């Protein structure tokens, strides 16, 4: 069963933008699309570890700022390239961004 924890207000992340969540095991990027969906991914491009949170968000994808790899937010897969970013459950409820606490534990064991 999911263990949703409240992270922040939705409006703390700009539309078509991202913010970082610091964990003991590196940063997770939380993305917000134009349609107010949120996605959580590791903040490291599979190519050269580029900070995805600094990329341009378009549709349900983000373009890495270092070398323009395009990563699908839903799957974490790089489009047209070999590579995948870890994704974590995230959702919006009552204007708040919620993440599944279990992902932290997964990251801890990993």
């Amino acid at each position, binding site marked *: 069963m999911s263990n949703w924890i409240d992270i*922040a207000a939705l409006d*703390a992340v700009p539309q078509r933008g991202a913010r970082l*969540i610091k964990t003991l095991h590196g940063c997770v990027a939380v993305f917000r699309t134009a349609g107010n969906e949120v996605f959580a991914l590791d903040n490291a491009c599979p190519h*050269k*570890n580029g900070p995805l949170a600094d990329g*341009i968000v*378009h549709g349900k994808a983000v373009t890495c700022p270092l070398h323009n790899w395009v990563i699908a937010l839903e799957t974490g897969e790089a489009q047209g390239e070999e590579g995948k970013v870890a994704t974590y459950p995230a959702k919006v409820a009552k204007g708040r961004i919620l993440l599944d606490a279990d992902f932290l534990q997964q990251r801890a064991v990993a």
Partner: protein
Amino acid sequence: MTQKLVVIGAGMASGRVLEHLFDGGADFDVTLFNAEERGNYNRIMLSPVLSGEKTYEDIVTHDADWYEANNVTCHFGTHVTAIDRQAKTVTSAKGTVAYDKLLIATGSAPFIIPVQGKDLPGVITYRDLDDTNAMIKASKAGGKAVVIGGGLLGLEAAAGLAERGMDVTVLHLMGHLMERQLDEAAGFLLRRDLEKRGITVKCRASTAAILGTDKVEGVLLEDNEGLEADLVVMAVGIRPETRLATDAGLEVARGIEVGAQLQTSDPDIFAVGECVEFDGQLFGLVAPLYDQAMVLANTLMDKPEVFTPKKLSTKLKVTGCDLFSAGDFAAGEGREDIVFRDPARGVYRRLVIEDDVIVGAVMYGDTADGNWFFGLIRDKTDISEMRDTVIFGPAYQGGAPSDPLSAVAALPRDAEICGCNGICKGEIEDAIAAGASDIGALRSQTKASASCGTCTGLVEQVLAVTLGDDFVLPTAQPICSCTEMTHEDVRRMIKSQELKSLPAVWQACDWKTPCGCHVCRPALNYYLLSDWPLDYEDDPQSRFVNERKHANIQKDGTFSVVPRMWGGITTPDELRAIADAADKFSVPTVKITGGQRIDLLGVKNEYLPAIWDDLNKAGMVSGHAYSKGLRTVKTCVGTDHCRFGTQDSTGLGIQLEKALWGSWTPHKLKLAVSGCPRNCAEATCKDIGIVCVDSGYQISIGGAAGMDVRETSLLCQVPTKEEVMDVVKAVTQSYRENAKYLDRIYKWMDKVGLEWIQEQITDLDIRAALVERFDLSQTIYRKDPWAQHVAKPAPYEPLATLTLEAAE
């Protein structure tokens, strides 16, 4: 049996007749007379000869080898004085020649207005190469020229003479120039363009007399105004040259009357070209003459064909100004106008509509869509469905905007591509199928674009459509896969439809993705903020991270911080503050940049607002080392210290940087000011470079020292600092308004031409308007982004910091 064909006149029409005859293997023994001392040449191209762009050799269509190869007996410089129809002979100074068939192609003679002084030396017409050479010779002495007649020929003469350094005045009887081809508004634009080149234009000016005793000295107008003149060019019109035909007793009205096979009232005598009258019509443009030539050649080869005059459009290049007109564009009851104007670019389009059908079109400045409008007029297409967008041309029709190639692809095979030579798309396709794979081959095989050349782009597009990937044309590329539109298309839409937000652009331009991509969004964001500085709110999410976070991202995700050092000048206090910041934030690398300032590399994202705050407190602002905008103005020490400096280059550099900083441009913009031609600031490889000289400031643009290395081209020289400021602001603004996103100035200059940019800058009204728009935009954007972000540091901080414990 071989027949004897005698041709009187070697013009564009008779030359074409002979080509068709020899190509068709006709059995004729040809004798060719020409009053001019030369054979066939392309008369349309006399203007480039006058202006010096081409030589006579460039415009010869048939040379001595061609005549010899086809066994043509040539008598050039020989007037035919009589035709004896009974004996079937023609007589000239060289004797008498017998004919089986005779072709009269005497063309036209310039109309001379019957005023006092018309025969004075120094009064010339503009009709043939001799006239052209006479003008070139007269212009060598400089002085003043008066051109009587503001039609095509008169204006070409005026422009050519002005190009050769004469002080030119054009007199035109009517209210606006080229009144038969243009309406008043387009005539005005043409006049303005000519005046920009220093040509004086007087409309409603009627010539009373030409003054002078031994040679021309001036022109007197009906209203008693007198104009000095060392040369008078009479270009008021032409009339068919019919004297020989009249003397021979042929039927002659205004021109030599011919039937549909171009035969005169004598069955063995034919006439072709400007000297004929068919069905009450005279012919002056080259397209119907070529049609006549084809019909006549077939007639002579016993392949009966009928000449039918076609509805014509006029697409002309007058002295570098593109204009187009077709159909009937007079205003009238029941007629409505659709007008599009882009005053800054000097573009004007007007469509005249009657009962949902376009009956006339006038275009000035941008005539690319002329053929499409002409097709709508000719086919009487009902335009009620596309009325809202028809003025924007074929690229905006049919729901989805499409690229020019698909418009060409959609043309039927019988669509005319080359108006001069009457070449249809089908003929070009056939030639391509037969192996012609470039424009040169197509020209020689089909003649498409071989006369006036204005359809060259269209012919290339047919090539591109037909050959597909095999043809490498620098075609207009869409911005990205989100759209079919090019950068230029989108900019045009943003301005003409007043699109002031990203969603408005996506909607109006039919974007295929919901919110663009990393390629198009930064471009659109730039176009919108550049075109609507007061209305559009910059969208940080549509900017590359460097411009969003006002620092340069490095490969490990850290950033570099570069404070501005105006003109490369710093102080011990500033240096101390930088050193302190570097210590406090453990900056791993401190480097001097090529733009004369200091780079702090390796700063962590979350420290950015704090380091900026420290630098702000020491009086420094963002150096925009990360932006598609003004970067640095590099200077040398100028007159302050240098033994050679001619002006205060450092002061000017600082003044420029303070005026320009914060502005966004299509790509990065680097300036430099050197205090003397030794050029220690390396100004001649910058986007805009200023080199100080004793008499003022040389401003040059379009340099580069990156992937491409380019030397700047001189834009202008000005005497004062104030003018430097205005010129630099104006050229920057023109670049902002017109260049494609991510084109440096040199790429933009390659597209629009240095000359065009110079025109913008030298016209003081345009310059002032550009400066005003630049200053207006700077009221919004000349602000320190670091100070703004220090006040709102949230985006640089983590959204949350989660520990394992918190999760448990």
